């Protein structure tokens, strides 16, 4: 699994609440049998016009955000479908973290398994980051996972919560399935005692 320790980047603001996974990657792009190439279709229906050409007024098409690693999104990001194609599309585009005030549960689980860090900020801290991005769109933030902080230009810091296990998996590159398989004897024992043999 892709790990995550630190990421320094400008942010790409997409300040819409309840962005669902159908917006992140519309269902017509799910007819694939691998995980590659989905970045081109990230936010496809917001990003491209009816003629298929990039819309000049959509932030992802701004040349200045090319290579940016941090998406700044509205509340309840990733609601809706369980499609893991959503984090595949986000990482395929180059994002390594999403900052919001909350994330849908399945999206959050899926993101963590793909090295994409969901950074949940308190409302006040979130507003600071939004204001910063508005005042200086090129300003760079650093997300530091081991210390669970977002470092703002000029020395400010805000902290974010993350499940300790998920943090270890990301920083140490722990393979979750590898971890599960260490319990093979316990799984076998459960199957016998709980009548699942």
């Amino acid at each position, binding site marked *: 699994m892709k790990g995550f320790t630190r990421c320094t980047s400008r942010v790409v603001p997409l*300040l*819409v*609440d*309840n962005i*669902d996974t*159908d*917006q992140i990657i*519309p*269902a*017509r792009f*799910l*007819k*694939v*049998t*691998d*995980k590659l190439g989905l970045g081109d279709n990230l936010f496809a*229906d917001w990003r491209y016009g*009816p003629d298929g050409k990039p819309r000049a007024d959509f932030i992802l098409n701004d040349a200045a955000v090319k290579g940016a690693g941090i998406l700044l999104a*509205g*509340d*309840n990001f990733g*609601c*809706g*479908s*369980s*499609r*893991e194609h959503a*984090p595949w599309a986000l990482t395929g585009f180059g994002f390594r973290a999403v900052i919001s005030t*909350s*994330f*849908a*549960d*399945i999206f959050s*689980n*899926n993101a963590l*398994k*793909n090295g994409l860090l969901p950074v949940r900020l308190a409302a006040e801290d979130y507003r600071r980051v939004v204001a910063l991005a508005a005042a200086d769109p090129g300003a760079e933030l650093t997300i530091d996972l081991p210390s669970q902080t977002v470092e703002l230009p000029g020395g400010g810091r805000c902290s974010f919560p993350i*499940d*300790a*296990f998920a943090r270890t998996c990301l920083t140490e590159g722990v393979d*979750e*399935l590898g*971890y*599960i*398989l260490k*319990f*093979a004897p*316990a*799984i076998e024992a*459960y*199957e016998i005692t*709980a*009548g*699942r043999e």
Partner: protein
Amino acid sequence: MTQSTEAAPSAAGAPRTLFAKVWDAHVVAQEPDAPALLYIDLHLVHEVTSPQAFAGLRARGMRVRRPERTVATVDHSIPTLPGGVAAADELAAAQIARMEENAKREGIRFYGPESPARGIVHVIGPELGFTQPGMTVVCGDSHTSTHGAFGALAFGIGTSEVEHVLASQCLLQRRPGVFEVRLTGRRPEGVTAKDIVLALLARIGVGGGTGHVFEYTGEGVRSLGMEERMTICNMSIEGGARAGMMAPDDTTFEYVAGREFAPKGEAWDRALARWRTLPSDAGAAFDRAVTIDLSALTPMITFGTNPGMGLPIAAPVPSPESLPDATQRAALRKALDYMALEAGRPLLGRPVDVVFIGSCTNGRITDLRQAASVLRGRRVAPTVRVLVVPGSRAVARQAEAEGLDRVFLNAGAEWRGAGCSMCIAMNGDQLAPGQYAVSTSNRNFEGRQGKGGRTFLASPLTAAASAVTGRITDARELGAKGGLS
């Protein structure tokens, strides 16, 4: 399928919720600071979210640990027009073929394109008796919450987690909170399960249940049939709750009894005794709670671009100016722009282009009966295209045995083959840009039913009534009384 874990009381004898009983009985291991390792009784698999998981498994040189606890079908991209897979586009056909190869290689029971038992995964699981009270059920599909109607803990997972379950029959999960949704009172005529869940979502919003599992309680649940319970649990995910659960009762047991994969004979008696211990104990504590008074409900419809943007069918579309918060105002304005709707006016009477009756939310036989009760002896408006898509081939056969297909066809609706169809618009059934649809499905997200399409979510009664008039219509005006079981 068997399971014999007793839902034994905790050591301290503290009252436990239905959720806690099912969860506790499935914890295989729990290390400090780590999520619980949860055993999965039933893994449902479909063509869209599984190919990368099977590939990952193969890359590790592993096989499916418990193929007999794994059930696969093809539903999302399967065409509903005659011709079957031959009518599928190249990518969909390749996905369907991959599902079949993977199922064959791993010895997984597969309900393929030609299987008479094929259907939407959340319709056939219960129909075939795979879904049983007290189980843990997962699928790479968020509407897995449907199966919670049986008192199972059922939730959607991503493809990485599909791989974990294929490999180990287990999942790492953090214990969620439990959110009681108490349904009180008796619903009026013409108010259906869909209206109940849309009312809940309008109340709590699409993120209201995040981090929680809903448990629906109260006399309002007891009066619901199993298919109505499935409709409500199905849309729990739209409130942000990964799962919705309802305590099993005689209605549940009667539904499960005799189904192909349900326990039989002595195994049935043992299962029944176990299932009767599942309901939440008196005094069990919930982390959050909300009460919905069913007697105060009217038919509901959504106006916006998420399922929480719903209102009573005669109510005016809310105005952004009426909202206190700037972000909420912006969100509502964006939704109304997309829907090209004016605030302040009700949706009633608004022309629509398409009516879609189907999906894992409302594609079961009782849903089709309700729609047929409105369409019988009537014609759909000439301006409207109406698709009726049964949730499974078994539902289709039952409908045909009852003559419902003739009702739909005589009314001028299309009677299609089984599948997810226009709920997710992956199989060629889709809205054209700008079209309005009344849909019995579960999501009104932008473009969900086709790029640029606009969706009003409603019950099968509202959908059928709107098909007749060509406008958004309260089915009670056409004399519909459905919804009472």
